[in-house]
């Protein structure tokens, strides 16, 4: 027996209410959540609030290039964060860049989570050779650093949104598969699964109706971490010149464009898009960190 005091029972609440109020106890996490909401809103509304469409080459004037923050563009609007090497307003560039970064991150995350869930559940439920085979691939995948795998994949496949999403899915799915298998194995041993099976429910039904819902908490936690990771990875690849092409300027592409002007002191071209990237990732990680604490304190890393 330890000295931890027996906790008095909290009054009865619905699970979600209890979860939400536990989440809200952490002020920093709430700030993260608010930031994330703002970022998503900004990205979604980019076409309506950006002063300029950075894709519209007719509107982008080379005469406006490399202007410092606060300069006035040829079209008359003020460029609060300056402009990049081809004359794009950075505020607009960042808003549109956020869009691409978020889309790539979330989409790759959803696809990877789906594949990982199916593989993980299959491994846990089927057992035997199938499980061995799947988990070997997972182990192999996880033993290789994701940057390297993504880098080489994208290098081989070429640039493009679809290709980078594919590469991000390849480096992410194994995390989901491992986590899902882990918690599914735990759930499988529990009595209610035995009960469901003895009632004659089909395998698929047992798996999806009974085991899956109980694996969701850890999946949600790694989904936040993985999405942040994917966004960062896409930016890294784009920065290295093997990610998104210049025609799809994600935040990483904007930062890469600023790199060459850095040594001459034109910091803003790389600085502000990077700041936007940082805030996005921090916001997601803050939310994810709290989710981990609330949903499952003993989740494996």
């Amino acid at each position: 027996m330890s000295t931890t005091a027996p906790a008095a029972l909290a009054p009865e609440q619905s699970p979600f209410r209890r979860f939400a109020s536990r989440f809200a106890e952490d002020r920093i996490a709430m700030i993260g959540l608010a930031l994330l909401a703002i970022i998503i809103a900004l990205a979604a509304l980019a076409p309506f609030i950006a002063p300029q469409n950075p894709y519209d080459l007719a509107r982008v004037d080379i005469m406006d290039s490399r202007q410092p923050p606060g300069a006035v563009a040829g079209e008359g609007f003020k460029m609060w964060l300056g402009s990049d090497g081809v004359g794009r307003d950075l505020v607009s560039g960042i808003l549109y860049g956020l869009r691409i970064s978020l889309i790539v991150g979330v989409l790759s995350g959803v696809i990877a989570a789906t594949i990982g869930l199916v593989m993980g559940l299959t491994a846990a439920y089927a057992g035997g050779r199938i499980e061995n085979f799947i988990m070997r691939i997972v182990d192999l995948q996880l033993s290789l650093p994701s940057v390297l795998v993504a880098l080489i994949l994208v290098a081989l496949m070429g640039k493009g949104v679809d290709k980078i999403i594919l590469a991000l899915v390849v480096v992410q799915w194994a995390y989901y598969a491992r986590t899902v298998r882990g918690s599914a194995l735990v759930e499988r041993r529990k009595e209610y699964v035995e009960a469901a099976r003895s009632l004659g429910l089909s395998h698929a039904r047992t798996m999806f109706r009974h085991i899956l819902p109980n694996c969701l908490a850890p999946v949600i936690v790694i989904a936040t971490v993985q999405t942040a990771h994917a966004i960062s990875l896409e930016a890294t690849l784009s920065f290295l010149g093997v990610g998104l092409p210049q025609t799809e300027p994600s935040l990483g592409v904007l930062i890469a464009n600023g790199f060459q002007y850095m040594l001459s002191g034109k910091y803003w071209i790389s600085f502000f898009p990077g700041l936007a990237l940082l805030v996005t990732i921090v916001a997601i990680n803050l939310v994810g960190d709290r989710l981990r604490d609330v949903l499952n304190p003993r989740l494996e890393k």
Partner: protein
Amino acid sequence: MATSGSTRPVLAVENLSTHFFTRDGVVKAVDGISFEVMPGEVLGLVGESGSGKSITGFSIMGLIDPPGRIVSGSIRLNGEELVGLDDRAMRRFRGRSLAMVFQDPMMTLNPVLRIDTQMMEAVQAHEAVSDKAARARSAEVLAMVGIPSPEERLSAYPHQFSGGMRQRVAIAIALIHRPALIIADEPTTALDVTIQSQILAEMQRLCAESGTALVWITHDLAVVAGLADRVAVMYAGRIAEQGKVDDVLDRPIHPYTHGLIGSVPGARMHGARLAQIPGSTPSLGRLPPGCAFAPRCPRADAACAEHAPSIAAAPDGRAYRCHRPMLIEEVAR
């Protein structure tokens, strides 16, 4: 075994309260308990889980961590006040004149350190002796607790020992400095029954030989009956009743003690229905205003629910907290 009451007690606990300040309110894990332990005496501290008996043990050791805190009372070891000492001052007592044996021997030894490391550091924590001398002392106490070829076994890791052997090692560590008092927190609960009685007998022998007093924390009345000189029965952070073990077990004053005795199989006549105490232990965060046992007590009346009973003394020297104490003849029936 118990020495006469005229000598000074090894341990005197007076009005001790240890509370936990949790998010959901204050949990009064120990709430105003007093008892004494004489040199060489064995005190059984009995109660269900959550009654505060382990917290009492940790309070004496000065091992209560936040959000818990000793809020009031006094603990005197050989006359020296322990409450209020800082950690550095408390360390002079811990392991030297005051030792503890924990419940689960699988958890108390550090799995990644060898036995000699864990024993020698205990020696050297209080005595500036060479590694060689510390090792010799370690082997000596290992032999004392009945571990064969102690010299060899010193180089082993805990996982190479069985549960019973690990508990012997833990007891050996507690005995290293020949303490005045050992607190044993259910040290046999996690062991096999046959090992349990061995350890029990061993500890009784060792304490008797060295004159070490023993506070034996347990939920098992049968253990207390065979081992203790005196017994204190705890319920919801308070001592319901304490006195000589024969008095308490044969003629309980407190209805809770009575219920506890009744629920031990074999304590009553063969074939008789096993009595149970109705209800369950109350949550310490939300105790009723009156006697904590009142909701479960067959004898409770309106007064019991209203205000908590204070400590009363019985003619045979026992102390109890009850508005409606059991009568001797009633128990005898």
